């Protein structure tokens, strides 16, 4: 079957879709806006729930993309998908236009820009960082404040940019809770006598072994959990971050000085994805993610024949679900191409 499929987005979903298509003998071109394919996972150090090194998965993906049926175009974005009869043409930002028999949209997500939650002072107070920044620190196996000091107390704020009408993101990003627990454990391993706090509204341990990780974080690593949404962060005279929250279980307001505040930033529909959807007439849901034709049995279909969705462009997902979703997208594409 010498069909040609264009995969927009070279993240986990894009690579997996391309790899599977290539193995089935189709010609695939992958268009990735960054210098390198791999997606957000390249910045990650260890993955939940078993804290295996992220390198192993990036290795798997790097191997996957190296198939000779795949041509990878990096540092390029796609403005529009044009539909002519049974085939598509895709104009790429570097001026070229690709014809394709089918298109898989795998534009993925953007990490919420924590600056938009001004009250947490990201970008203003030195020791307010995001979970992604912390993960980079883990790569160097050293967790230090901006002043190079070893923190004696670290706070994780859940639901930053998720489940929050004020930043127009009412959806839950699913993976930040379990990431916070994982990072809390990693901090406690690197800094055994550093107190760790998680400020949460609900602990959403949705996947397999997630609840066990949560229990282990309490039992073995003595992580503290305070139920309440942090309202504001401010800097103190001794350069720490002062945090205000209501301990809703005690029914009392609470204030605490922290050396490092980690914001668990959520997932949003990627900006480039949004522009592409608009230009190509693909409908997006209330949470601005791409709207699948059917929640239950058509989550890969876009409602337009020949255009399929894969991965977190439809909804927040962990890596396991993203890969399965990508494989499902390939099946749908192959069925479509055969039935045509």
């Amino acid at each position: 079957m010498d069909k040609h499929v264009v995969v927009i987005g070279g993240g986990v979903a894009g690579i997996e879709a391309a790899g599977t298509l290539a193995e089935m003998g189709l010609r695939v071109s992958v268009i990735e806006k960054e210098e390198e394919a791999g997606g957000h996972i390249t910045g990650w150090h260890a993955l939940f729930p078993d804290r295996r090194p992220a390198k192993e998965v990036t290795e798997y993906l790097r191997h996957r993309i190296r198939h000779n049926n795949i041509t990878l175009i990096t540092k390029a974005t796609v403005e529009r998908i044009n539909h002519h009869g049974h085939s598509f043409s895709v104009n790429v930002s570097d001026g070229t236009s690709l014809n394709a028999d089918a298109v898989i949209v795998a534009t993925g997500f953007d990490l919420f820009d924590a600056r938009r939650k001004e009250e947490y002072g990201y970008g203003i107070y030195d020791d307010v960082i995001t979970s992604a920044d912390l993960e980079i620190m883990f790569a160097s196996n050293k967790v230090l404040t901006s002043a190079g000091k070893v923190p004696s107390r670290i706070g994780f704020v859940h639901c930053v940019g998720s489940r929050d009408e004020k930043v127009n993101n009412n959806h839950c990003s699913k993976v930040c809770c379990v990431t916070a627990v994982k990072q809390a454990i990693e901090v406690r391993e690197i800094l055994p006598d550093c107190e760790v706090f998680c400020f949460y509204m609900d602990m959403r341990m949705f996947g397999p072994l997630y609840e066990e990780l949560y229990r282990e974080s309490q039992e073995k690593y003595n992580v503290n959990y305070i139920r309440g949404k942090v309202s504001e962060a401010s800097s103190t005279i001794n350069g720490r971050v002062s945090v205000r929250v209501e301990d809703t279980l005690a029914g009392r307001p609470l204030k605490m000085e922290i050396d490092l505040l980690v914001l668990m930033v959520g997932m949003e529909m990627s900006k480039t994805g949004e522009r592409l959807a608009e230009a190509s007439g693909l409908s997006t849901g209330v949470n601005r993610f791409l709207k699948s034709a059917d929640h239950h049995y058509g989550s890969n279909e876009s409602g337009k024949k020949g255009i399929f969705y894969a991965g977190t462009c439809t909804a927040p997902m962990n890596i396991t679900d993203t890969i399965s979703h990508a494989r499902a997208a390939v099946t749908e594409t192959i069925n479509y191409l055969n039935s045509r």
Partner: protein
Amino acid sequence: MSATAADKFGFAINRTRLINYDTTDRKVRGYISEREPSFRLCFACGGCTASCTAGQHTTFNLRRMNTYIRRGEIAPLREEVTRCMLCGKCLLVCPRGVNTRNVVAVASEAIRKFERNEL
């Protein structure tokens, strides 16, 4: 608030209800966690309070007590902790397998010691 302030001005400065985590004293929590490590496992679901025998006759709330202990708020617990009958129903209910009965037993002792700062 001193009595003079109230009569001189007709009002006094309200005491803050804020828990300042940097100044609260959490010795009781340490005392309990040492003797009953499962105390850490509590995620405040309230199952114990729901099944509590004493809880039907008086204000005894084990979930709130655990939370207050974690925050070092010991004063409000002085009377409450003495009301538990150690009947053990909460043991059978706790989804996390916290040894709630031993937590109360150790807590009542710890709080008494804390009040007489023997801790």
